[in-house]
Structure formats: C-alpha cells, structure tokens
C-alpha cells in the first residue's frame, strides 16, 4: 500500500469524523469545492440537462460596449450563450461571442490585440455535446453552438484552473504593486476557491533585468506569455521568450539583455499579475489612492490618449487610454515615464536678471511691467515671438494676437522652420490618418525615423507590415527599424530618381494599391524643402498616391504644437527675424537657435522648466505645464484634443494664455478675451477645426495646388530629426528616468 493511499484514507476519515448533525463549529474539511454535488461532474451535467431556459431572457449588454461588425452579412451565425441567442460573424471565438452576449469570461493569456495562446485555461466554458470544458479563447464559435458559462462544470473548471495558478504564486499581495488592479487577485476573488490543497514548497524564479523601466518579480509570473507575444508582435523586438518546461518554465531573455524597445512599458499594463511592474512607480502609491485625469500626451505629435494618475499635487504615473484611431491601447516609454520631469527644475516665481547676471525673484506686477515697458521701446519689426513645442493652441493664439497688436508679425513655432507652408493644411498633416495606415501596402519614408519621432505611428506601420507584408522603402540616414525595410538612399537625389521612375523601388510603389508616403518634419528645416516636397508631389502624382478614395501623402510632425501653430498661421514675416530682433518672446521655446540673436536683445522666457531657453532670458515668467492646465493640442493627423488639469501648478506659475492676457493689459493693448471659451471663439475665426475636439478634421484641398518650384534639391543627405528618443523637450530633459534611459541608449 502506497503512502498516497494512506494519506487519502486519512483524508476520508477526517471527513467521517465530521458529524453533520453536530451543529457545532465546522471542523476542518479538505475539499476544494464548497458544494459537494459539484464534485461529481456527471451529476452536475444531469442537473444542467433541465429543459432549456425560457426564451424571454432580459436583454444583455455587450461587455465593455463591444460592437459587432459584420464584414459580410451572409457570414453571420447564431450561437446561444446561456440560452440567449446572439448573432456573430463567422470566425469569432467562443469568448468573443460570450462578450457580445454580455458575459465576461475570465482570462489571463487572452488579449484581443495579441495572438491567441490558449495556455492559461482560465476561460474554460461548457459547450453542449463537448465531452470536456473548452478553452473559449481558442475555440471558434460554430453555428448553433450552445455555450454555457454559468454551469457547475464551467465553475468547477475555473476553480480548478485557479487553484493550479495559485499553486506557485506567492502570497505577497500586500507588498505587490499590482495589488488592487491585479487580474489574478480579482479573478481569484470572483472565480477561485476559498482554499487550496497545495502544501509543498512554492517555486521561485530569478528576477530578470529588463532595464530602468520595467521591474520584474518573476516568481509572481503565471506564464500567460502576454509579454512574449507583445514583444514580438507589437513592439517588434524578439527579446523575450518562454524558457524551460513544466514547473521550471520561466519568462526571460536567456542571455543577459535589456528590452530595447520604445514600447517596453506596455508590458506593465498587459501583465495580468505583478510580475512586470513599473520600476519608477514601485512602492510609491496604491492605485486606489490615485485620482485619474483623462488627458493627452504632448511629448510627441501623436497625441496619445493618457490618464494622468495623481495623488495630491504630484503626478504619480501615466497610463494609456484606449483610442483606436491614435494609440490603440499602447503608449511609448517616453509618454509613460517622463512624468518625474514635471517635479524637477520647475520655474515657480517670476524672475528678472539683474546687472550681475543673476536672477532675482520678483512679483508678477514688476515682471510684467518691465516686459511691457521694454516691449514699447522696441520697433515693432524687431519684436519676435517663438512658440515652444509644448504650447497649446489657445496660448499660441493669444501670443500671436498680442504681437500683432504690438505691430509685429514675426511669430513662429519651433520645428516648423522659417518658411512653413501654412496655406495648404494637407501639406503638413497626416492625410491618411494613423489608423488609415493599416490599409496601406507600400510605404515610402522620406527623411523620417518613425521609431524615434512618433513611436505610436511606428507601431501602426509595424502592425501593417506584419499583417500584410507591405513593402517599406526608406530614404534618410541609417536608422533602426523593427520591421523589414529597404534603405533606398540617404539624400533627396534618391527621391528624384524615384520620381523619374529610375529607381527599383518606384515599381513597388506603382504596383501598390494603397501607397503611402511619409515625409518627416525634419525636412522643414532644410534649405531645399520646397524642392523635396515637389519631388514627393511628383512621386505621389506618378503613383496614384492621392485619389478621391485614398490620400497617402503624409507629413509626420515632431511636436505637439506644430500642427496647431500652422493652423493658426504662426508664420514669420521674415526668415532673418531672429538675426535683427531686439525683443524675443520665448513661450516655452527651448530648441530655437538663438546663436545669431544680437547681444543687446531682450529675451523673455515664459515656460515651466529651467531649460535651454532660460540661459539667454532676461525675464522669466513661470507658466504651468500641460498636466496643470486645459489646452487644445492638434496631433499630426489633424485631430484636436484637450488636456485637462490633473494637479495644481507649482509656485506662482500661471497658465500661458493668462500671462499673455495680463501682459497685454499692462502693455496697454488689451486682448479681448478673459476666458478659455472666449479665446476659443477667437480661434473659431482663424482655425475652426481646432474646436472639433476628438474628431479628426481631414484637410480639404490636396497639395496638388502647391505652386511650382524652380528650386533644385541639394545633395546634402537627410539628418535625423530626433537624436535621442528619450529627451526631446524641456520636461523630458528634466526627467531622471529619461536620463537613465538615454544613458542606456548611448551604451
């Protein structure tokens, strides 16, 4: 007799010992299912075999507003979920059918944006005439299938799976950062048993070093492989893998290797347990203490939708919000982790540079008075305004109006170059739209490295290339791509070759059904910008890129302010205005080249960070950052979105537009608006599309209306527009986390 038999006898005897008539305290009883009849699957099935439920079931709502889209109405099939009939298109899985029927199936490994693994087994449901419970995430729904999600068999199956998952999962929820938003925690509460039978040692797994952003506690991992699939399918870096077998299985990179992806932070969100958590956020706050503010990211021109989680006056973390048209449910690492820059190097008091070259804090009244006084002493044409890359549309409108009232029209937005083409909106936005890129089958990237310029756009291209094997041609300096591409050349001559049909890639473009050309905004700063755009226009014309049903001619902008600035007409009157300027108003502009600025020029820096612009400033006016104000930003595809204040601003800082409004009062050129609403009605007269919030406004006229240019392209190769992905603006340059990332990048 084996010892196992002995043990089971002991178990049985303990059950006998418990007298049901006792009525006293319940004694120790080792069984996993609380209702004994469930132990017998046959009996449970028999109970279930009752007459079918009445057809007049209450109407159920799809989970999370899931919508059904029938690509072909003939392919609709009907399945029954818990007796409730639901029409779904062919090819949907059982789990998706249940979602449409309003039943949320528990799952760990299934993620609707990743491939199906079917290895966690949590989504087991009962299907009539099937001998065993089936994994609903991997099972295609068949016509007339009778799915039962609430039967004893399904419940018992889930309970069993949950017990196995918890077998090797540590009981460290109190010190786990995922606590409170953990799928395992929630689902074990909802579907698990109140006890487990495992008494052996739990396994432990060595933690992996995935870099400064993702903290790993691999012992907590339940091997759902979501991160492995995310890395190879969405991020496009094949670094992570499932190593080993059986109970020794673990996620890792095998060789010591950091996850070199600009989207690596998303594994934190998709990890259903606390195995992958945010390193900067570790042990900082609990998720139920945080206030979520739905806002917009401004670190690049994509305008990813984010939720800013704050506690009191501090931004604790940034997480993505779902927006199918822009960022799906991912955000780049820069968006997710730059927030600590909001706490460092902030300007909190108005300051004036004294004769000794040191800044002295003054009151708002004094600072504005000095600026107004100096402004009036300068000739109007020597006044220049520069909007920074993080400026919102309202403050840019106010700045432009102020300068116009002073008699100057020398105002521009950094990154747009000195000859921006603001007349044709289609000439500077992404006409295909970000989600439209998925329909493309050939890409021509001109002087742009989307991976560092707009990581979310790159993720779309990667998705398209992965799905349709679209051809990608790239003209520009050697760059890092995470999909197959052909490096066609480094300079604009290659463009001319393609335009004239001499290049091998032109046949690929010609044969493509939906070709896409993406021009990087780095081209704006080139001398031969017009010639480059003319060459691109020729390519577009020869290859049918712009048609009534398809517009594949795009410009990929770099900064959040660029599109709105061009919409508002922030175009300098003369391209040499900086060289002769005596008064420069920098509104958060840190990257504008001030080398040629005369030494006696008076520089006002209005902004939130003591960054490059401050070195030259005579007066500092502290402004609030985008997390502290309401402002409209237009992203690269022409979709206006609004940020909302999540935290109070620091010190004595004010919103940008309020400072300019106050300055106009002091200077005696009062601007006619006192509220955001009033500024917006002013914007309505200039760029009404900026008021259509959250809705992409396509450009009306095509770029074919552009005037002919006689300029010839130069032989200078394209230069990278973004040197360091992690540090592109004042906030990210102040961030410690971003500094760590860039240090790793340089290695």
């Amino acid at each position, binding site marked *: 007799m084996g*010892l196992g038999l*002995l*043990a089971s006898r*002991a*178990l049985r*005897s*303990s059950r006998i*010992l*418990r007298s049901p008539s006792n009525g006293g305290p319940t*004694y*120790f009883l*080792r069984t996993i299912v609380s209702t004994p009849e469930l132990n017998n699957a046959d009996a449970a099935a028999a109970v279930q075999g009752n007459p079918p439920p009445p057809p007049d079931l209450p109407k159920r709502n799809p989970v999370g507003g899931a919508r059904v889209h029938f690509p072909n109405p003939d392919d609709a099939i009907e399945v029954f979920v818990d007796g409730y009939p639901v029409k779904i298109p062919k090819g949907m899985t059982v789990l998706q059918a249940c979602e449409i029927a309003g039943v949320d199936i528990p799952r760990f490994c299934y993620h609707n944006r990743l491939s199906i693994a079917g290895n966690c087994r949590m989504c087991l449901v009962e299907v009539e005439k099937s001998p065993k419970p089936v994994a609903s995430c991997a099972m295609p729904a068949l016509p007339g299938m009778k799915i039962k999600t609430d039967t004893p068999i399904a419940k018992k199956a889930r309970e069993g799976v949950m017990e196995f998952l918890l077998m090797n999962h540590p009981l460290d929820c109190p010190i786990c950062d995922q606590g409170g938003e953990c799928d395992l925690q929630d689902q074990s509460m909802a579907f698990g048993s109140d006890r487990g039978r495992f*008494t*052996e*040692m739990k*396994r432990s797994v*060595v933690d*992996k070093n995935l870099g400064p952003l993702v903290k790993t506690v691999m012992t907590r991992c339940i091997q759902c492989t979501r991160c492995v699939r995310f890395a*190879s399918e969405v991020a496009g870096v*094949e*670094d*992570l*893998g*499932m*190593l*080993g*077998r*059986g*109970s*020794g*299985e*673990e996620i*890792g*990179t*095998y*060789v*010591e290797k950091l996850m070199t992806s600009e989207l690596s932070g998303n594994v934190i969100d998709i990890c259903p347990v606390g195995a992958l958590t945010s390193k900067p956020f570790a042990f900082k706050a609990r998720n139920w203490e945080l206030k979520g503010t739905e806002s917009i990211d401004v670190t690049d021109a994509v305008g990813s939708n984010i939720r800013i989680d704050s506690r009191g006056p501090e931004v604790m973390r940034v997480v993505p919000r779902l927006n199918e048209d822009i960022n799906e449910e991912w955000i780049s690492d820069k968006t997710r982790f730059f927030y600590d820059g909001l706490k460092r190097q902030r300007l909190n008091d108005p300051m004036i540079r004294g004769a000794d070259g040191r800044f002295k804090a003054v009151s708002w009244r004094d600072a504005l008075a000095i600026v107004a006084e100096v402004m009036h002493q300068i000739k109007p044409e020597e006044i220049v305004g520069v909007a920074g890359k993080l400026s919102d549309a309202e403050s840019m409108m106010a700045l432009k109006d102020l300068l116009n009232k002073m008699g100057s029209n020398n105002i521009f937005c950094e990154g747009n170059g000195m000859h921006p083409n603001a007349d044709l909106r289609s000439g500077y936005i992404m006409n295909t739209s970000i989600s439209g890129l998925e329909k493309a089958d050939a890409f021509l990237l001109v002087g742009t490295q989307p991976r560092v310029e707009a990581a979310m756009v790159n993720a779309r291209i990667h998705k398209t290339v992965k799905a349709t094997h679209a051809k990608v041609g790239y003209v520009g300096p050697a760059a890092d791509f995470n999909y197959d591409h052909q490096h066609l050349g480094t300079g604009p001559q290659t463009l001319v070759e393609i335009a004239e049909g001499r290049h091998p890639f032109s046949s690929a473009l010609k044969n493509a059904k939906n070709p896409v050309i993406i021009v990087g905004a780095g081209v704006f700063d080139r001398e031969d910008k017009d010639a480059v755009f003319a060459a691109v226009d020729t390519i577009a014309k020869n290859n049918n890129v712009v048609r009534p049903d398809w517009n594949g001619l795009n410009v990929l902008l770099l900064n959040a302010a660029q599109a709105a600035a061009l919409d508002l007409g922030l175009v300098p009157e003369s391209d040499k205005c900086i060289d002769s300027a005596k008064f420069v108003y920098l509104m958060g502009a840190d990257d504008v080249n001030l080398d040629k600025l005369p030494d006696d020029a008076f520089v006002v820096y209005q902004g939130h960070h003591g960054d490059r612009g401050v070195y030259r400033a005579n007066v500092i006016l502290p402004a609030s950052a985008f997390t502290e104000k309401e402002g409209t930003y237009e992203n690269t595809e022409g979709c206006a979105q609004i940020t909302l204040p999540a935290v109070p601003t620091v010190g004595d800082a004010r919103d940008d537009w309020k400072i300019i409004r106050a300055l106009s009062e002091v200077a005696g050129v009062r601007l006619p608006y006192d509220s955001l609403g009033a500024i917006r009605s002013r914007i309505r007269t200039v760029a009404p599309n900026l008021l259509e919030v959250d809705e992409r406004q396509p450009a009306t006229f095509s770029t074919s209306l552009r005037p002919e240019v006689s300029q010839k392209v130069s032989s200078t190769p394209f230069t990278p527009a973004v040197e360091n992905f992690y540090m592109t603006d004042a906030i990210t340059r102040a961030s410690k986390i971003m500094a760590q990332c860039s240090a790793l990048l340089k290695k």
Partner: protein
Amino acid sequence: MFGRLAAQRLNEIRTAFRRTTQASRSFSTALNYHIDTPDNNPDLPWEFNDANKEKVKEILSFYPSNYKQSAVIPLLDLAQQQNGGWLPVSAMNAVAKVIEVAPIRVYEVATFYTMFNRTKVGKYHLLVCGTTPCMIRGSRGIEEAILKHLGVKRNEVTKDGLFSVGEMECMANIKKKDARILK
C-alpha cells in the same frame, strides 16, 4: 477535537512525504538562463564545420523554404554532436542564423528539451533514470555510487573531462531494473 487531531495527523503524513525543502528543478543540465563563462559566451565564434554544412543543407531541404524554422531541432542536434555533446550559446546563435529566426526562439526550444545540454558535459555523459519504478528499485543508490566513484556532483564534469552524470526521465527499460545511457 477529533477534527483537530485528524488535521494534525494529516499534517504529519504530509511532512513525512515532503522530501527536501528544495524542490527539484528541471532535469536538463542547466539553469533556464545563461551565465557567461569563459568557455560559453555569445562572443565565442562558432560555426558548423564543412561536413556538417552539407548536412545542414540536407536537413533544410526537408522543409519548405518559408518554414525553415521547422529545422530547429535537427540542427540543434547536429550542433550538439559537433560540439562534443553540449550546446554553447554561440552554437544556438549559429542555428538561429541558419534558420533566420531571433536567437530567443532557438533558446526556447533548447531549454525545453532536456536532451540538449546547455552546459559542458563529459565525453561520456551518464544519465541515471529518476522515474518512480527505477527509483524504487534503487536508482538513487546507483547514482550515488557513480558520483562517489567519480568524485563529482550531479551535472559536474570530472577533471579529465571524461565523465559527467545527470538524471533523465524514463527510457522504458523498467524490466532491466535500471537504465543508464551513455552518450
């Protein structure tokens, strides 16, 4: 009262069952992650020799050209044979290059199968069956004897590089009491 006694007894039985505090890990010869050593690191050059290059071509010819990755197991086996019974990380990288996949996809396969040895083994790699019937018939004693005779621990190589001892799963040789495999 009785309930508590029964629980106590049950616990005693459990404790008796529990062997060591350290749960045994996988049977393969190495950890599931790589640690750089002088004789095993990604910087070491490794290539199929000329005879094996022919074999690589032959193996690849069995699979459609767009499913080259199917050849991963035969190629790893070939690499292991060429390298004296074990697979250094650079050999796995070489295989990954041949079948045009990311190295991690090869590591995944190599760590899954226990007969791919990812650390150095002796010229004669002794494997003692650790499955229950053999264990009951005294395979542990045999293993101990071998280890004592060779003066090494499990998964260690003798100083002369001739022998190493490991544990393996059932070889269906139960009738012969105990199975050892020489490689």
